[in-house]
């Protein structure tokens, strides 16, 4: 039974998901349910001069229509920014009002204006076409680098600047640059992405007019947090009468962290009409109105000395927040970004500024990696350029600058507890057969292809912590996690976690941990999550935190179960608690052959007395039952790291890039289930490659989203990938007892730089993401390629 941890166990949840038995929000249908359809702005920026819904109200099947005036009258609060940033001048960031239904103005295509509630979806849609909104269309700004020069789009927010953030030591860094032997400069664009979870967002509000209880079913990564925000800020319903259920959730990638207008509105509408109100996003609504990710414009400089040592880094970034500031919109391009710009290099000084700007585009927020992919892209591109410019091998240059000793306090924020960067780079170089790359390059040349190689040696910081620190820099909540372990009388175990699986396989990973800890078969362990009425308050799943933080809470709760079990066992085995050992599900009295299984102990806890065959009185002072709860607040982040090596072939005639070889060696500390981790890495790399080569959210001059469907938004597909080579090294994390480091975002964080370094190596000149065929072709032509020009 022991050693579930580390085993390649097939996912417990696969059966339901692979046989179509997953139960998502859209699968739920309630008696007397009604349907909501949103009227959305067709304009990027406009004043609403008139809104007339009288015709819609009279349309067949319509129950009610709600507008910005209704929610204002009923004092429904607007959407919030959950982590506020302070600018370098000491002033708080500026957040425009963000009503759940627009009142006077709209600020991006897809902005929510009104909602029609009807008996059927078709009726709701038909009636929505009759809602007459008059707009006075205004000029819109969409480009990140133009926002501060454009007229104010929100009243009182000058230059469309939300914040001007600074991290680091400007004076010391300027000095390092003045003494540098070489300064390497780089301008990069981090393209805007659309998260594209497989399951579109969905929400059903269900108000019970008899009990005054409100239930919201919603596809969310963090139901407790949603409930807190919707009670405290949106004033939808008091927290103790409010239940949020997030059943199976089909991917989120950060886009299901936010409380969205649709969540608030269906909950509100259900209270107003006294019937359930259901809304399921159409794919085009997902494209328009899910939070987008990335969208940075950055200038970076690296100071290097003649020995090839990095002596400082300077980065200036403009981050596009979109039309409003969402829950993690401000922390993502600041605290989750700037500290990571140091990479895994021992850099003595740094200075980074970030301007957060508003534009007439969909709001941006966390998207898989949240800040760390953007930072990794900057540092891994610029160290590659630096190695090139000083004529050093790129692996050598990296190693020369790697942090070698741990713990290591970086000059910005992070205190990295453990790592061995040479180990994963050496292993990756070996697996990728780096030494024979030039042979492969000439082989490709014979086929008329330009081959390039790219490295990305990344680290990341996941499981944002500790709570006291994050709250001191603006977070509206602490980032601990909870667990409750219920050992049932009949010997099976229910585990309630505040984390939420929307593809991360918690049902399996967490069961493995509990199985090993308590000596219970994995089939007899149920992992429960996603329902505020079931487990204790939890913070949810994002930032690769579930295992390091949530898993630890589970371990701690199990430890409490064992401690209590020892007391009960001592009584039954006639010894002292300190003389009881617990191993593989058995409590054993030291130096004896007397033992009790954990099942027997649990049974005793629920039947504390003597009756017939039962003889299990509990020791004095021990309460009946075997249920323990733990809240874990980690002392630090965990810091996974790794090396990606990518090879591409570029077709010189067409500019098409093909990924031909991809090697990953990660250090995730203790790996609980290699099968699941592999899945996370494959998926993560695929999304990172998507950013590098294919994906791009494109707004035209007038603010229309021109990539609003799969006909125009290029997703990476299976046939874009070679078989990847994955491997691991291991330095356990010291900030949690599992030794685990997050793995969910690593692939997405490292891959864009690895791919682009390879593309640029092949092409011989700079290319910005996504490296589409035409962009690469143009770069080749500019670089003098005859084939491209032919």
């Amino acid at each position, binding site marked *: 039974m022991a050693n579930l941890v580390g085993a390649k166990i097939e996912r417990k949840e696969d059966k339901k998901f692979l046989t179509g038995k997953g139960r998502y929000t859209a699968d739920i249908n309630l008696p007397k349910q009604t349907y909501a359809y949103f009227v959305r702005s067709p304009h990027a920026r406009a004043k609403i001069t008139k809104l007339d819904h009288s015709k819609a109200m009279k349309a067949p099947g319509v129950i009610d229509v709600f507008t910005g005036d209704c929610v204002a009258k009923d004092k429904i609060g607007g959407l919030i920014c959950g982590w506020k940033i302070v600018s370098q001048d000491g002033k708080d960031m500026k957040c425009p009002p963000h009503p759940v239904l627009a009142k006077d103005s709209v600020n991006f295509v897809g902005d929510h204006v009104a909602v029609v509630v009807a008996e059927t979806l*078709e009726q709701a*849609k*038909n009636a929505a076409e009759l809602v007459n909104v008059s707009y006075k269309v205004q000029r819109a700004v969409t480009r990140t680098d133009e926002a501060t020069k454009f007229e104010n789009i929100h009243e009182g927010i000058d230059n469309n600047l939300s914040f001007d953030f600074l991290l680091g030591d400007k004076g010391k860094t300027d000095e390092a640059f003045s003494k540098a032997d070489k300064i390497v400069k780089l301008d990069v664009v981090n393209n805007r992405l659309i998260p594209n979870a497989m399951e579109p967002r969905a929400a059903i509000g269900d108000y019970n007019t008899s009990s005054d209880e409100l239930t919201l079913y919603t596809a969310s990564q963090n139901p407790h947090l949603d409930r807190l925000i919707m009670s405290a800020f949106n004033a939808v319903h008091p927290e103790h009468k409010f239940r949020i259920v997030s059943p199976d959730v089909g991917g989120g990638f950060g886009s299901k962290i936010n409380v969205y207008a649709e969540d608030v509105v269906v909950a509100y509408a259900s209270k107003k009409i006294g019937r359930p109100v259901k809304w399921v996003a159409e794919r*085009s609504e997902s494209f328009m109105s899910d939070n987008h990710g990335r969208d940075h414009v950055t200038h970076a400089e690296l100071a290097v000395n003649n020995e090839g040592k990095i002596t400082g880094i300077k980065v200036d970034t403009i981050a596009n927040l979109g039309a409003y500031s969402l829950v993690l919109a401000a922390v993502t391009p600041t605290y989750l970004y700037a500290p990571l710009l140091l990479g895994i290099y021992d850099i003595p000084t740094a200075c980074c500024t970030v301007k957060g700007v508003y534009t007439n585009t969909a709001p941006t927020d966390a998207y898989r990696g949240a800040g760390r992919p953007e930072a990794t892209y900057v540092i891994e591109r610029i160290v590659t350029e630096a190695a090139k410019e000083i004529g050093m091998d790129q692996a050598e240059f990296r190693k020369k600058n790697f942090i070698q000793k741990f713990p290591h306090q970086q000059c910005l924020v992070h205190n990295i507890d453990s790592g061995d960067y040479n180990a994963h780079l050496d292993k990756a170089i070996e697996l990728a057969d780096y030494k024979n790359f030039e042979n492969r390059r000439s082989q490709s040349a014979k086929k008329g292809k330009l081959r390039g190689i790219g490295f990305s040696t990344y680290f990341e910081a996941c499981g944002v912590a500790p709570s006291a620190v994050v709250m001191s820099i603006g977070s509206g909540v602490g980032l601990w996690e909870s667990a409750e372990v219920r050992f049932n009388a009949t010997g099976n175990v229910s585990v309630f976690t505040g984390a939420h699986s929307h593809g991360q396989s918690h049902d399996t990973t967490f069961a493995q941990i509990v199985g090993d800890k308590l000596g219970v078969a994995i089939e007899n362990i149920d992992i429960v999550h996603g329902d505020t009425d079931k487990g204790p308050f939890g913070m949810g799943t994002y930032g690769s935190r579930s295992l390091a933080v949530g898993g630890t809470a589970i371990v701690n709760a199990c430890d409490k179960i064992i401690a209590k079990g020892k007391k009960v066992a001592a009584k039954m085995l006639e010894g002292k608690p300190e003389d009881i050992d617990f191993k593989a599900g058995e409590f054993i009295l030291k130096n004896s052959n007397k033992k009790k299984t954990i099942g027997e102990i649990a049974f005793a806890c629920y039947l504390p007395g003597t009756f017939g065959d039962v003889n299990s009185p509990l020791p004095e002072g021990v309460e009946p039952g075997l249920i323990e709860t733990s809240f874990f607040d980690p002392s630090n982040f965990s810091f996974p790291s790794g090396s990606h090596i990518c090879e591409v072939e570029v077709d010189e*005639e*067409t500019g098409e890039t093909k990924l031909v070889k991809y090697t990953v060696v990660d250090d995730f500390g203790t790996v609980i289930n290699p099968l699941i981790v592999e899945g996370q890495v494959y998926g993560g790399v695929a999304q990172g490659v998507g950013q590098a080569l*294919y994906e*791009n959210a*494109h707004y035209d001059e007038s603010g229309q989203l*021109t*990539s609003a469907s*799969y*006909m*125009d*938004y*290029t*997703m990476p597909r299976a046939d874009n990938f070679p078989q990847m080579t994955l491997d691991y090294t291991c330095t356990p994390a010291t900030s949690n007892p599992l030794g685990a480091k997050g793995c969910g975002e690593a692939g997405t964080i490292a891959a864009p730089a690895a791919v682009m370094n390879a593309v640029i190596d092949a092409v011989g000149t700079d290319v910005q993401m996504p490296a*589409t*065929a*035409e962009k690469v*072709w*143009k770069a080749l032509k500019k670089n003098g390629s005859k084939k491209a020009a*032919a």
Partner: protein
Amino acid sequence: MKSFNFKSATNTKEAVKLISGRATFLAGGMTLLPAIKLRLAAYSDLINIKKIKGLSGIKVSSKSLRIGSTTTHAEVAASKEVGKSISSLAILAEGIGDPQVRNRGTIGGSIANNDPAADYPSACLALNATIHTSKRKISADKFFTGMFETDLKKGELVESIEFEVPEKSSYAKFPNPASRYALVGVYVAKLKKEVRVAVTGVESCVFRCKKLEDALSSNFSSSAIDNVNISSKGFNADIHASAEYRAHIIKVMAKKAVSSC
């Protein structure tokens, strides 16, 4: 989706008769249904033509290959007859969309729809096809009249498409990376009497490229294309490709097609 009446016709005559008012034919539904769902189109009646016997199937003779209008892309791709007589056509069908689309989508639906980036229209032009309808025969040169427009009259049903069997032919497609329709598709065919080159994805409607046809008529080899100058004037430009890039890719695809003939 707005609701509509669904009717199945069992023969061509009945199908044609059922078209009145805001009614239209439904074949594979791969284009029509998404348009209705997105409310880009609305109909009172959809007339299912997939139940009509004899509309589907493949017939070969030494001179021509005739494909029934409701024959699916998957059937064309897998057909031994097509593979033997005009293998480039089977390859084209294999490259349309994904397996689901190929299993439902039909050749008749594709040409009646005449999407500017669809593949089959280029085959029709290059292989000098004749479109047999419920009313008449139309030559491919006259059939494709504009963006999503054809010479078909209201209620006129495509029954089959008859392709001339060429001496040599090949189709080279440069897919749009997102939709995988043709960003540029070039169909080259060396027929008994002439060389034809049809280009799709590049303008509002599929067209024959006279310059490439002339060059290849005098010298059917990829080097003949090197000196052809393709002007990008009037070509599509969008977020996926500029007109200039499309012009460049026409040549690259044409060479690829000729060298794999």
